């Protein structure tokens, strides 16, 4: 066999076309966010696929030192219990009055031991403190210290079933969103109850918010209420980012 014929232009073309085809076929499952035939959502999904195919899953974002902590605007919902909020939450207002003593985070879905955790119970888990950069889709960024329990610890305690692929989150300001298992089990993905050495304040998502450090800020949901582990993708309906016109995966 002549070695110079090993890679011909034709072979290269065939290899390229078949591998792209393979990607498209494997894309036809419910392990990917729906596009609703929208070309923008197709672009978002393509970016997600490329990131998951090419980027190492375990890489950590940069962690900063204490002196790097910066001023931090509170945007979006700054108090779900505020009567001026478009969808004010009576439940949240009552929880806040009680100092969040009655707040419980429920974990449901594809887990062996569904249940709920109080703030004290979450603080009973081994904690993680990280000084990371929050990047807002608007273009600004800020650095803060977050303390909380790694989501993977809580998921382990609840016993995620082997078929589970996504983790959905629901908040008191009526948002729904989800992340894939790679982000959910990432060491820097935490349920944060502390910010800059204090209890998490209401404008920043009290009593507990999510931190998903390898995606933009809006994935780090504030005012957590409920976690649901799922086998298949769930867009969260009208409360979800996709139906509100935002990219589901925003690691960019």
């Amino acid at each position, binding site marked *: 066999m002549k070695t110079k014929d090993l890679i011909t232009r034709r072979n290269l073309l065939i290899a390229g076309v078949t591998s792209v085809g393979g990607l498209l076929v494997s894309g036809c499952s419910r392990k990917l966010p729906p596009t609703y035939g929208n*070309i*923008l*959502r*197709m*672009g*978002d999904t*393509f*970016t997600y696929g490329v*990131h998951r195919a090419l*980027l*190492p899953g375990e*890489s*950590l*974002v*940069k962690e*900063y030192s204490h002196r*790097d*902590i*910066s*001023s*931090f*605007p*509170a*945007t979006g919902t*700054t108090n779900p219990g505020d009567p001026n909020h478009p969808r004010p939450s009576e439940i949240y207002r009552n929880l806040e009055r009680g100092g969040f003593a009655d707040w419980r985070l429920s974990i449901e879905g594809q887990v062996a031991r569904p249940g709920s955790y109080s703030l004290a119970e979450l603080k009973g888990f081994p904690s993680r403190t990280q000084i990371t*950069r929050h*990047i*807002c*889709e*608007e*273009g*600004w*960024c*800020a*650095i803060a210290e977050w303390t909380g329990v790694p989501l993977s610890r809580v998921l382990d305690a609840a016993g995620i079933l082997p078929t589970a692929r996504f983790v959905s989150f629901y908040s008191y300001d009526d948002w729904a969103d989800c992340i894939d298992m790679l982000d959910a089990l990432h060491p820097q993905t935490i349920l944060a109850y502390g*910010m*800059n*050495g*204090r209890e998490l*304040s209401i*404008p*920043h998502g009290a009593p507990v918010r999510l931190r998903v*450090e*390898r*995606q*933009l800020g809006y994935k780090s949901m504030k005012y957590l209420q409920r976690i649901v582990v799922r086998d298949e993708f769930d867009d969260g309906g009208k409360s979800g980012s996709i139906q*509100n*016109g*935002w*990219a589901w995966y*925003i*690691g*960019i």
Partner: protein
Amino acid sequence: MANSQKQPVQPNRIGHTRWVRLSHWIITVSFLTLAFTGVEILMVHPRLYWGEVGNDLTPALLELPISRNYRHGGWDKTVAFFQDAGSPVSANRTYDIFNKNGWGRSLHFLAAWCFVLPGAIYLLVGLFTGHFRRNIVPRPTELNPKSFWREIVDHTRLRIRAATGGPTYGLLQKCSYFAVVFVALPLAVVSGLSMSPAITAAFPFLLRLFGGYQSARTIHFGTFVILILFLLVHVVMIIKSGFKHQMRAMTIGK
């Protein structure tokens, strides 16, 4: 490649090859979409910074009056994070900002794919066919102060050569194409990637390269300004050298 070397063609009658014409228009459409959505994204937060961090509660390098978000002032009183003087602060935003980033960002990244993938093919083909070596990279013999001076004088007086419909290019033309293809566009891509939390987690040197997220964002904006200036000059040159002829040469190739 072999053809053009064997058969001596008159240098000013080569014309644009088909792949150059195709790349030109794919990149044009992608670039214009990137520029349009880039301006939309900047309008949402029309402040530029230097370093790692920048937001409405930190000083800006530059503020652009390009949307109602410019100095909107819709903030509650600030609350300090720490006891000491000069502590970083928090404040609630009370202002309903302009924000079309839902489609703006997704379209920006869709256009980025439509730019990066054909752009990479363009670079590879340009390298392997000798297009860059023959037509874009200035020859050492051209690079002398006298030639530069003559071309600069001609261009400032708008004495532009009539269209040849393709290579060979003039010295300043080669230099500007070289700067766009090998400096400005790659810098736009790399500074853009440096704003991605997933990519900088995998490749932390990107943040060190630019000295932080906000520096990368400001440089990304800088490449936009440079490329828009290039586009303006490019269009003026096309018009001055014979618009119809040039457009025909870059579309149907005649």
